[in-house]
């Protein structure tokens, strides 16, 4: 079986992740199409984040053992050379995190961070400058923020900057690990809006990891529900969240608080 036939941008097959004797992820198959936003739902500890890290080849730095297959287009990433993985990280697959401000080095002005990262990926200084300002425009931030230090940014601004970095690096896949969980609801809505727009304008594929089904319902085309490292249900968001088949999914859906309803 190959990923080529399905046209998936990113495909995970028989992915097993274990810490010592403890297996934390046992994932048969998960595919992310070009320009698709796929939700990965589940409670904390269900293996969502480590799966994303495994895609980048970073799970092993946490001491995990990874087996199986992660394919980007046609390229196998599990067991790929570290130097090749470094090229792919950032430039083809980017990741954004839950705590946007602390995901930026406190001692670097945002502009320095952009310049260094872009130049590390072989972009010339002049073009780096151009790409950074264009990316900032795309995420609706003033380029003045390039001169700020992380502690001078709000959570929403920092998360936009993280997305701008992915745009400036021309990433094709964005792994978003709970990117809105630490943000105010209004800011959260803006970030979701931005992700949607990035998908439409750039055709970026987004793997959106969240425990928040309300957010997933609003954003994602498809959703996969993960429990104890396995995918228990997968399908179009409306179907999975509207008429869940799996017991665990049913419980998750029932747990979502509803506005105006009081017991």
């Amino acid at each position, binding site marked *: 079986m190959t990923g080529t036939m399905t046209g998936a941008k990113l495909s995970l097959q028989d992915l097993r992740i274990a810490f010592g004797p403890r297996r934390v992820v046992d994932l048969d198959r998960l595919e992310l199409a070009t320009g698709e936003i796929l939700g990965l739902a589940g409670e904390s500890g269900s293996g969502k984040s480590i799966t994303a890290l495994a895609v980048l080849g970073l799970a092993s730095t946490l001491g995990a053992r990874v087996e199986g297959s992660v394919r980007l287009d046609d390229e196998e990433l599990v067991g790929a050379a570290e130097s090749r993985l*470094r090229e792919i990280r950032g430039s083809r697959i980017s990741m954004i995190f839950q705590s946007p401000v602390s995901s930026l080095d406190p001692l670097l002005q945002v502009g320095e961070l*952009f310049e260094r990262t872009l130049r590390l990926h072989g972009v010339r200084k002049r073009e780096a400058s151009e790409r950074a300002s264009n990316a900032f425009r795309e995420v609706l931030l003033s380029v003045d923020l390039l001169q700020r230090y992380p502690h001078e940014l709000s959570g929403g601004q920092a998360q936009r900057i993280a997305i701008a970095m992915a745009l400036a690096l021309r990433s094709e896949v964005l792994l978003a690990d709970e990117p809105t969980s630490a943000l105010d609801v209004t800011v959260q809505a803006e970030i979701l809006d931005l992700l949607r727009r990035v998908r439409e304008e750039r055709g970026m594929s987004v793997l959106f990891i969240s425990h928040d089904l309300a957010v997933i319902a609003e954003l994602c085309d498809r959703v996969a529900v993960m429990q104890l490292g396995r995918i228990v249900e997968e399908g179009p968001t409306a179907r999975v969240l509207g008429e869940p088949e799996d017991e665990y999914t049913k419980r998750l859906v029932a747990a979502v608080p509803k506005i105006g309803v009081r017991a």
Partner: protein
Amino acid sequence: MSRVPSYPDVESREEVLAPPGRLRSVPGVIRRNPLVAVGAAMCLAIFLVAVLAPLIATYPEDAGSAVHPLQTLEPPSAQHYFGTDQVGRDVFSRVVYGARISPVIAVLVLAISVLIGVPLGIAAGYFGGWIDEVISRVTDVFLAFPALLLALAFAAVMKPSITNTVIAISVTWWPWYTRIVRGQAASVTGRPFVESAKATGIPHRTILLRHILPNSITPIIVQVSLDVGGVILTASALSFLGLGAQDPTPDWGLMVSQGQAFFTTQWWLVTFPGAAIFLTAAAFNLLGDGLRDVLDPRRVLTTR
């Protein structure tokens, strides 16, 4: 749904990246922490005294092996600003020449300790695992001995000289820095921006040098500036025991320890070299404070 529809005017900007470090400019730091300028001025003064010692000292030959049996232990006067010592040498001249010795020992020891200790600590804290184990255990072995005892042991197997004093003290000094930096680097490594840097394909070397090191260095700067006095005193302890600088050498620490015997009656023997040690330590302390401010944008903001 609220949007932020402010498209900035990008084209009008020539250079948006790598802007001038407005918070870290040297004049800015001095304005917010004027004592830094005092520290820098004092360090410069010490340096100038060391360089110009032959011009400043009133009796340059007293820095050497001169002996004046007829004028021992004289109190401060117009001829001898700081008095004379137990063999009649001019204390002022010896303190002036001492600027060529004690501060140099301190700077050399601390430079060597930082150069050995910091890279090891950073590597141990960042990589963890067996690298950490090896580095930490070696560090522990050195730290298991009382520092002075270890320095004595090393000094004892070498000929007493200033170079060997520097080596002996450095050997006992670096493990402290390794330990401090290791803890700091380990905690920085666990922060999200390091994971974020890895996720953008930054290689280990760059993460270590550009992210972990700058974020771990502050406690070392503080420690180094506090240690200047300690190194000078440790060097004097070695001299006192006959394992460091030897008598005619106008080492401040040596002068203090030799003057101890006369302290209750001839206070000037101890006081002036002691004051020189104190001023040197204070100068580096203040300079260290400023350096920390320069390196940490947040601190500059809060002291504004």
